[in-house]
């Protein structure tokens, strides 16, 4: 197996390919309390994020629609899995965590064990041109929680 192909398989890990092929929480949420659009103008990735947040600030359910590359779809799918059932504060701190982790050279692993799955996205760090794909859904999450009306972009 060539060296370059090995690398590639660090980006396209099994978990990523699985989530991109079978995205979880895919579709529209009819009773959403928060929504946001995300656009990556570079490659045309587009998604719409739906959240239902209950009175106590807990994300009861979440889903997304749209089209994009394997990385952006997998990231969105992983995100909805991660944030469903947690409080919006914790969701925001995931947003911080993921975006920082992918855009800095920080390599230490978060102590938070629920971050485990998200480590599947770490392969993206070696592909700076793709980081925006991985963070798109997270920016949309942040926008939705902030109730912004303009589409989130990753610029």
């Amino acid at each position, binding site marked *: 197996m060539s060296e370059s192909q090995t690398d590639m*398989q660090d980006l396209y890990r099994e978990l990523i390919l699985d989530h991109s092929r079978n995205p979880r929480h895919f579709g529209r949420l009819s009773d959403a309390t928060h929504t946001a659009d995300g656009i990556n103008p570079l490659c045309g990735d587009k998604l719409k994020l739906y959240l239902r947040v209950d009175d106590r600030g807990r994300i009861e359910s979440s889903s997304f629609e749209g089209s994009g590359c394997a990385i952006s779809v997998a990231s969105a799918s992983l995100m909805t899995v991660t944030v469903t059932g947690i409080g919006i504060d914790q969701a925001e701190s995931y947003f911080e965590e993921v975006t920082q982790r992918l855009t800095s050279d920080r390599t230490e692993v978060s102590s938070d064990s629920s971050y485990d799955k998200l480590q599947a996205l770490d392969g993206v760090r070696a592909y700076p041109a793709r980081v925006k794909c991985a963070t798109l859904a997270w920016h949309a999450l942040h926008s939705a929680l902030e109730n912004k009306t303009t589409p989130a972009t990753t610029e």
Partner: protein
Amino acid sequence: MSAPAHITASASWRSDFPALHQKVHGRPLVYLDSAASAQQPASVIDAIARYEREDHANVHRGVHTLSHRATEAYEGSRDRIRDFINARSRSEVVLTSGTTESINLVAQSFCRPRLQAGDKIVITHLEHHANIVPWQLVCEQTGAELVVAPINDRGEVELEQMLELIDDRTFLIAVAHVANALGTVCPISRIVEHAGARGIPVLVDGAQGVPHLEVDVQALGCDFYAFSGHKMFGPTGTGVLWGREELLDAMPPWQGGGDMILEVSFDKTTYNELPYKFEAGTPNIAGVVGLGAAIEYLQAIGMQNIADYEHDLHTYMVSELKKVDGIRLFGEARDQASVQSFLLADIHSHDLGTILDHQGVAIRTGHHCAMPVMQRFGISGTARASLAFYNNRDDVDRLTAALGKASEIFA
């Protein structure tokens, strides 16, 4: 043309381009993204550096030696451009920052003052955003209407339907010479013939025309022709608007500033003559010097030789791509330049781009600033390999091999 001849010619051309001789991810670079921006021969890079080291000063405004040399170099490039596209006179060659500015200039200076609500601007479904959005803006400003001629599944303009859209409310027709996403060569002369008979001006977006075809604006018969330096092996930040002198003459200036005036007072300002009326401010002198050098380079090879070579290479690429399992081609016009869009199985173009890059193969992915084309085909983007005369069959083989890897990874 026999195969060995290609290989020889292309090898010598290729060696003129420093950027092509590097490794990317450990593999020799295969650059298949010239339609986005072409690489520059060493002669262009050196001409610019030499200009900056020896001749730089502001143009048009000085009597000292460097200023005179800079002006000669700058205006010398204009003469070369005139010759290259066979414009009638140098007054018709307006230097801009690129195709985008050239088209915006026509929208704002030719159309905006005269467009009436209900007038129409006719474009095609093939256009680059640069040949869509300026018209959307001016239509919004004036109440005019943007009318879009359809394309067929091969990516060709539906000419009959297009001609039917043209009526006595049509103010201008704007059409790509060569479409950037699909490579389609548009039937300019048919359109010009029809429009000319009705006195309707035609703007040709030549950004992808000039690098691939021998362009003679007088023979084409259009009224405006816009193109960019960086797509024709020259520098970024340079471009040309060619226009018929009568039309340019009748247009108000677009931007105000130095060089575009003869006299300024607070009571009355007299504009300079063509082409200076449209060249406000200090121009991209070094860039234009580089553009002149690029044209010199192209003329030495000959645009017809380039077109022939590319046609042959494109044919080879299409036949090789068709052998790849799961490939879908977009753009199969009967008259097509050496630009090819495709998708592989259900792999997103962006993922394809990354995987190919990892094999040293640089292609463009996404919507190519032609979202309506993507909408027409119901896709979000394509992978696009665009060939220049410095590419060769080996590059094509590297492309298809890399596509094989992509299939493996996404198997």
